């Protein structure tokens, strides 16, 4: 099967190239797996020129599935290292910060000043102006403890 004098294998390879470029142009659409599947199909078609068109399409579909599954496994086992894992996680970023008490912590609840903002805090009782260290964050509430006297 040929189109415009080009072999089916070449067409698959061109399709792979187009999908790869599309992945670059349209980010966030997962076309690179399809590009790999198309490339594999193209190579197979060139190797076996008498492969029927239906088999070619099926091969493309199956390889797409396989590449996605492999890709998913790959990303799960080797996650993409982000240079800033705490990005867009403002609360988690505050762990370890030194904060001052803005509204005295009594009965376990109070408010602490972080930069120019005020966050709700939980921890041992402390007067206004005491410095505390953030140890963890629970749904937007900072868990603080007094700074170790060193």
């Amino acid at each position, binding site marked *: 099967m040929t189109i415009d004098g080009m072999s089916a294998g070449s067409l698959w390879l061109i399709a792979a190239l187009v999908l790869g470029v599309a992945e670059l142009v349209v980010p966030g659409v*997962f076309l690179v*797996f399809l590009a790999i599947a198309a490339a594999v199909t193209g190579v197979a078609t060139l190797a076996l020129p008498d492969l029927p068109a*239906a088999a070619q*399409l099926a091969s493309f579909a199956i390889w797409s599935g396989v590449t996605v599954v492999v*890709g998913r496994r790959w990303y799960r086992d080797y996650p993409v290292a982000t240079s800033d894992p705490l990005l*867009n*996680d*403002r609360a988690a970023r505050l762990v370890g910060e030194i904060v001052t008490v803005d509204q005295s912590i009594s009965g376990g609840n109070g408010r602490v000043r972080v930069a120019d903002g005020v966050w709700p805090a939980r921890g041992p009782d402390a007067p206004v102006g005491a410095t505390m260290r953030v140890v963890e964050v629970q*749904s*937007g509430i900072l868990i603080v403890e007094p700074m170790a006297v060193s």
Partner: protein
Amino acid sequence: MALTAGALLMALVLLYLFTSIKIVRQGYQYTIEHFGRFTSTARPGFNFYPAFFYRVGRKINMMEQVIDIPGQEIITKDNAMVAVDGVVFFQVLDAAKAAYEVSELYVAILQLTTTNLRTVMGSMDLDETLSKRDEINARLLVVVDHATAAWGVKITRVEVKDIRPPADIVNAMGRQMKAEREKRANILEAEGSRASEILRAEGQKQSKILEAEGRREAAYRDAEARERSAEAEAKATQLVSIAIEQGSAQSLNYFIAQKYVEAVGKFATSPNAKTILFPVEATQLIGTLGGIGELAKQALSDAPAAPRVPAPPAPPARPKGPFEPSAE
């Protein structure tokens, strides 16, 4: 037939893959629903959730966002109408809560801030609202932050942008400020002139005092000088009288005669009068000469001298004045 089946298979597989792969961009989190029930949040990156079983619920923006609070009329405690607008900065901390605990997050935050802005500013009078923005911001932040904590949202900042009192009040404020400054200027001027008058008077007083002191000192010195000259006079008189006593009274006559003759000589030599009126008797002059002769006779004779009289006592010491320097 086989071709159609292959094409269909390919289309289905591609469709399934496209709907199953969820690429989440940085800055967002997607909530994933399993048959309509929330299961997990898809974090930025490559996510695969099989289609038909899982679907994306909400796409939550995890970046800090700004909502503009539109301008509104607020009545302050002292019944002034002011137009106020502001901004709220917030960030979603918990995508699931922000997606499902509140139905319209932005509208909710906006309404909450608007109403609380009214509450806070309505409890202050106009001057306070204009001068205590920090306090307004802080109070708003606490209230709104408390209310939105349940929605997995952190209100980072609430800022009142613009407070515009009505034009006539602004005008009155301007006049008040001007009057205030003029008052201060007048007070300062009055204080300045008062201070300068006081200084001038002080100076005059000082100069008068110094002058009087000078006069007093001078008077002292004058008095002292007169005393000294009187003392000298007394002393001289005393010496003369002692001299006369030791010599004889006739020696006085010698001196007097000398002076008399000299005076007559001066009359003779004076250029303006060649005619001399002699009010004295010429015989007197002759008499003085006779006195001298007597003197000579007495000196040459061996007659005993007149008995000596003791010298008169010195005058008593003058009592010292209160300002007189004590003598060393």
